[in-house]
C-alpha cells in the first residue's frame, strides 16, 4: 500500500508539470488551430535559461521563473509575429512543417552553442525530501508542484475574469465571430502563443532541478505534451490539466508494477483506450 501511495504522489507531482506543458500546447491549438511541434524545444530553451541563470548569476531555479516567464513570453510572441502568423491560413501539413522546422533550429542552435553534453543542476535542496506518514516527497518536486498550481490558478482567473482572457476564449470559439465583435484576433493570437511559450518555458525551469538538460530533451516533451492534450481534449485547458496529472500517475504506477521499461506501454495503452471510447478526448467536444 505504501508503495502505491508513494507512486501515486510522485506521479501527481510530476503530472503537475506535465499539465503545465499540456496547457501551453492546448492554448496555442485552441486559438490558432496550429499544433506546435516546437513545444518541447521551447521547454528546452526554458531549461537552458534556468541553468545559466543559476550557474552564472546564482539565481535560484525556482526564483528565476520570474525572469523566465516574461522572457519566454516575448520569445513566443516573436515566433508568432515573425513565423506562425504567415502560416495561419496555410495547409495543416505546412503548419506542421513550420513548427517542426522551428524546433529543429532551436535544438541545433543550442547544441552548437552549448554542445550536446548533459548538464545537471545541483542546488542545496536537490536531493532533499520531506517524509510525511512514511511517504517521502522530493522537495524540489513539491516546490515545483506548488508553483505549477499557483500558475494554473492564475491562468484560470485570467481566462475567466479578465477582458483579454475572455477575448482569447472568444477567439478560440469562433475566430470570425470574434473578429466581427471587434476583437483584435491577431493580437490575441500573439498573446496566446506568448502564453503557450511562457508556460512551456516555465515547465522547463521547474523541472530543470530534477532532470538533466541536453539539447534534444525537447522531443521527449513534445510527444508527451501531444499525448496529454489529445487525452484531455484538444483546446480544453481543464482537459490538459487532467491529462497531465493522469499521464504522470500512469507513468509512475506503471513503473512500479510493470517495471521501468514498461511504463510507456502503460501510458500509451491508456491513451489508446481513451481514444477508442472517447475520440474527442476526456473533456473535448467533437467539432462536427
Amino acid at each position, binding site marked *: 500500500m505504501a508503495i502505491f501511495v508513494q507512486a501515486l504522489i510522485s506521479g501527481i507531482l510530476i503530472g503537475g508539470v506535465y499539465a503545465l506543458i499540456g496547457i501551453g500546447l492546448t492554448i496555442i491549438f485552441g486559438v490558432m488551430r496550429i499544433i506546435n511541434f516546437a513545444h518541447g524545444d521551447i521547454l528546452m530553451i526554458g531549461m537552458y535559461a534556468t541553468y545559466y541563470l543559476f550557474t552564472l548569476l546564482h539565481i535560484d531555479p525556482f526564483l528565476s521563473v520570474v525572469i523566465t516567464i516574461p522572457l519566454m513570453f516575448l520569445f513566443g510572441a516573436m515566433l508568432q509575429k515573425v513565423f506562425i502568423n504567415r502560416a495561419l491560413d496555410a495547409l495543416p501539413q505546412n503548419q506542421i512543417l513550420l513548427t517542426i522546422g522551428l524546433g529543429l533550429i532551436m535544438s541545433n542552435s543550442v547544441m552548437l552553442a552549448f554542445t550536446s553534453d548533459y548538464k545537471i543542476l545541483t542546488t542545496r535542496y536537490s*536531493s532533499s525530501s520531506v517524509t510525511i506518514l512514511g511517504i517521502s516527497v522530493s522537495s524540489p518536486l513539491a516546490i515545483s508542484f506548488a508553483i505549477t498550481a499557483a500558475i494554473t490558478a492564475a491562468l484560470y482567473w485570467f481566462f475567466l475574469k479578465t477582458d483579454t482572457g475572455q477575448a482569447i476564449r472568444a477567439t478560440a470559439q469562433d475566430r470570425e465571430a470574434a473578429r466581427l465583435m471587434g476583437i483584435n484576433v491577431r493580437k490575441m493570437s500573439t498573446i496566446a502563443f506568448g502564453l503557450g511559450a511562457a508556460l512551456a518555458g516555465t515547465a522547463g525551469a521547474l523541472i530543470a532541478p530534477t532532470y538533466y538538460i541536453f539539447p534534444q530533451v525537447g522531443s521527449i516533451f513534445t510527444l508527451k505534451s501531444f499525448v496529454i492534450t489529445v487525452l484531455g481534449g484538444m483546446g480544453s485547458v481543464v482537459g490538459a490539466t487532467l491529462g497531465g496529472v493522469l499521464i504522470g500517475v500512469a507513468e509512475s504506477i506503471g*513503473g512500479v508494477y510493470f517495471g*521501468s521499461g514498461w511504463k510507456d506501454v502503460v501510458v500509451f495503452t491508456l491513451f489508446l483506450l481513451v481514444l477508442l471510447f472517447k475520440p474527442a478526448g476526456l473533456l473535448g467536444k467533437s467539432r462536427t
Partner: protein
Amino acid sequence: MKRFVVLLGAISLFVPSFAHGAKVKIGFVNSITGPEAPIGENLTNGVTLAVEDLKKKGIEVDLVKEDDTGKPETSMSAFEKLATRDNVTGIVGPYSSKCAAALAKLAEKYKVPLLIPVASKDDITRQNLKWTFRLSATTNDYAMVLLDMATKLGKPKTMAIINENTDFGTSGAKSAKEYAAKKGLSVVAEEAYAPGSPDYRSTLAGIKAKNPDLVFMVSYVADAILLMRQSRELNLVPRAFLGAGAGFATVQFAKEKDISNDVFSSAQWTPDVSWPGAKEFNERYKARFGKEPTYHATTAYESMRIMAETAAKAGGSANRTRDLLKRGKWNGIMGEVKFADYDGYTNQNKHPMLVQQIQNGVHETVYPPQYAPKKPVYPFPGWGK
C-alpha cells in the same frame, strides 16, 4: 629568388633530423560531444599526454581525432573514414561499449588494428576477432570484484540490479546476476531503464519495498547522480551501493558529496595504486588539466602509447602492427599488459580490477587489500551520516 633557394637549403638541412624520429598515423575515435562527453574528455586528455610523451621518445604521432557523439552509427562512419581516407596504421577508441561493439566488426573488415581502451562489454572480445584488442577488464570483472568485496565484508543475502538498457548496462547486469548466483546471493529485483527518462522514483520505490542488502547499478554520469539523488529522496538504505565504474567513477559524481558518500565503485585504475608511473601520471595530469584523472584517462594514455610504439616498430604496416600487438608485453601505469586468448576471449588483457569508495568527496582505493591504502566503510551508514 636567391633568398628562396637559401630557405630551401635551410629546410633540407632540417629534414634528415626528422627522418630519425619515426612518424606514425593513428586514429582516435571518442565521444567528444554527446551524453558520454564528460567521460570522453578524460580519454582525450589521456591521449594528449601520451602523444607528448611519445614525442619525447622520438615517435611523432600524426593523430586523427574523430567524434562519435556517443552513437554507434557515427562511430562507424568515423572508423570508415579513418581506415579508407586517412589510411591510419591503427585506431584507439571508442569510449562506450555500444560504439566499440560496432567498430570491432569493422576492424575485421578493413583490417586495421583497433585497440579499445576502456569499453568493457564482455562480448566485444569474445567473437574471435583478430583485429580487435582490449586493454581494460570486462564488465564481468566489474561485477566480480564488487561482489567479492561485499561478500567478504559482510553476509549480504539479497541484491537488486538497476541498469541502463544499453550494451554496457545490460552486459554489466547480466554478469552481476550470474556471479551473484555463484556467490549464493539471490537477485530480488532487476530493473533496466531507458536513458533519457530521468524519473526513477517508481523504480526505486519498487526496489525499496524488496529491501535488498545490496544495490548494484550500471549507469553513466547523469543517471548515476539522479539515481543516487532519488535513492536519498526515497530513503533507500541497503547495506551497500555498488556502482559498476562508468558514471560512479567520475570526479563529477564524487563532488556531489550529499549523495555520493560511501558509494562503492569498481575501477580499472586509481591514483594510489602501486603500478609503475601511476602516481607521477596523477600529478602531471592534475597540473596540466586541473582535475583528477579517472581510469578512462589512464587506459586511453596507455592504449595510445602501446599502439603508437607498436605502429612505429612495425614501420606503419597495419598487418605487422597487429602481429606485434599480439606478441608484445608492456608494463606501465596500467600494470602489466599482454593481449591473451583465454576463457573464450581473444586479444584480451587480463587486467586486475580495483574497488574505490567515495569518502568525503574523494575516491579512495579500498579493495583488494594488497593495493588499498584505505579501509572500506561497510555497511552503508545511512543518508546524511
